[in-house]
C-alpha cells in the first residue's frame, strides 16, 4: 500500500468536508426559512464531524492531531477543491453547490465503502448513510425550485452555469491516481466523474434546468495541489481565530 497516495486521498476529502462544512455553518441564523437554516447547520455539523474522523485516520498514519491539522495550516497547505471554498453567495448558489458537490460526495463514499483500506471502508459505510440525507435534501429543492417560477428557474440556471467549471474541479486527478486504483483503495476520479454526470443529469431532467455540454467547459483546478482562490485564507483565518488565541487550551 502506498501510504503517500492514501494520505493524499484522505487530505483532499477531509479538507473538502471541513471547508464546505464551515461554509454551510455560515448559513446558521441566515437561512431563507427556518427549516433551511437548520438543514444547512445540520449538514455543517455532519461534514465537520466527518472531516474530524478522516483527520483521525491521518493521525493514525503519522500526521498531526486533527485540531492542529484543521486549524494551524495555511491555505496553500489545504487540498480541498476550490468549489467548496467559494463564498455562499445567495441561496441559489449555495443550493446548486450543495447539489453538485454532495452528489459527488455520496458516490465517492459509496465507492469507498468497498475500499481495500479497511479503516476508510468502515468510515465510508457510516458517512454514506449520513450523506444520503444531504443528497436527498438537495435533490428535492433542485427539482422543486428548478421548476417553480421564472425567477427561481433563472436564478438556479445562472448559478448552475457559474458553478459547473468549479464543480468539474472536484475531479482533479492526483499524481497517485494509478496507485489508488491498482491497490483497490479508490476507483479514481474519472470513474467518479462519470457516475456523477449520470446522477446530476437524472435529477436535472426532472426540472426545467438544462445542463450545458460539460465537455465544452474548462474545469477550474489547482485546489488539490494547494492552489486556491482569494477566498480560502480569510475563511481559514476566521475559522481558526478562537483556536489560535490559545492552541493548547483544553476544550
Amino acid at each position, binding site marked *: 500500500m502506498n501510504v503517500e497516495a492514501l494520505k493524499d486521498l484522505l487530505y483532499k476529502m477531509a479538507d473538502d468536508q471541513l471547508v464546505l462544512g464551515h461554509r454551510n455553518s455560515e448559513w446558521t441564523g441566515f437561512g431563507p426559512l427556518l*427549516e433551511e437554516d*437548520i*438543514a444547512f*447547520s*445540520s*449538514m455543517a*455539523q*455532519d*461534514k*465537520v*464531524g*466527518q472531516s*474530524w*474522523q478522516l483527520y483521525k485516520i491521518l493521525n493514525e498514519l503519522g500526521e498531526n492531531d486533527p485540531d492542529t491539522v484543521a486549524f494551524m495550516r495555511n491555505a496553500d497547505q489545504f487540498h480541498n477543491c476550490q468549489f467548496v471554498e467559494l463564498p455562499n453567495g445567495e441561496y441559489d448558489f449555495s443550493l446548486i453547490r450543495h447539489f453538485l458537490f454532495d452528489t459527488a460526495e455520496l458516490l465517492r463514499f459509496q465507492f469507498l465503502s468497498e475500499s481495500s483500506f479497511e*479503516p476508510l471502508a*468502515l*468510515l465510508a*459505510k*457510516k*458517512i454514506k*448513510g*449520513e450523506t*444520503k*440525507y444531504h443528497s*436527498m*435534501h438537495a435533490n*428535492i429543492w433542485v427539482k422543486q425550485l428548478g421548476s417553480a417560477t421564472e425567477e427561481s428557474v433563472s436564478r438556479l440556471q445562472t448559478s448552475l452555469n457559474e458553478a459547473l467549471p468549479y464543480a468539474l474541479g472536484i475531479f482533479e486527478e492526483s499524481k497517485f491516481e494509478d496507485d489508488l486504483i491498482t491497490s483497490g483503495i479508490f476507483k479514481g476520479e474519472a470513474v467518479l466523474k462519470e457516475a456523477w454526470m449520470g446522477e446530476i443529469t437524472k435529477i436535472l431532467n426532472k426540472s426545467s434546468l438544462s445542463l450545458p455540454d460539460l465537455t465544452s467547459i474548462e474545469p477550474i483546478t489547482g485546489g488539490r495541489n494547494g492552489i486556491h482562490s482569494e477566498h480560502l485564507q480569510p475563511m481559514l483565518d476566521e475559522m481558526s481565530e478562537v483556536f489560535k488565541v490559545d492552541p493548547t487550551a483544553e476544550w
Partner: protein
Amino acid sequence: MTNSVEEIREWLEEVKDPEIPVLSLNDLGVITGIQIQDSGKVVVDMTPTFTGCPAMDVMKQDVVDVLTKNGIEDQEVRVTFETQWNSNLISDKGRKALADFGLAPPPKHNMVVDIDIIERASCPHCGSDNTEMNTPFGPTLCRSIHHCNNCGETFEQFKPV
C-alpha cells in the same frame, strides 16, 4: 473477582444518552462489544450514531466512569466504526422509552433508507400515522421534524439511518 459480560452490560444500563436521558446506551445500540480478556482487562467498544455526534465524548467518559466505579481498573473504551450504527439497533425497550419521551422511534427498515422511509412516522402523542414530514433536519443530528394531521401537534422523530 471476575465479572461477566452480562454483569458489565447491566452496569452500563445507567449510562444514558445525554441528549435523550431516558435511553440507555445499551438500548440505543451504541455499545457494540464487551470483551473480558484473559488478563482480566475489560474492553468496551462503542460506535457513534452520527459521525459528528457531539455527545460521543461525554458518553465515552460516562462508560469509563461506570467501569471505574465498579472496580474495573484495567479497562479500555474504544470508539470504532467496525460495526456501523443503524437505527434498527435500537432495542424494543428503547423504542418504547423514546415514544414515552415524546420522540417517535425510527421506522424499521431493510437498510435502504429512502424518502418513503424517512417520511413515515407515527405521532408519539396520539399514535396516528396520518403525519407528514416538515424537515429531515432537526434540533440534533439524529432528529427530524414532523407534523401530525390528526392531533395537530408537531413532533420529532429519531431519524432512520
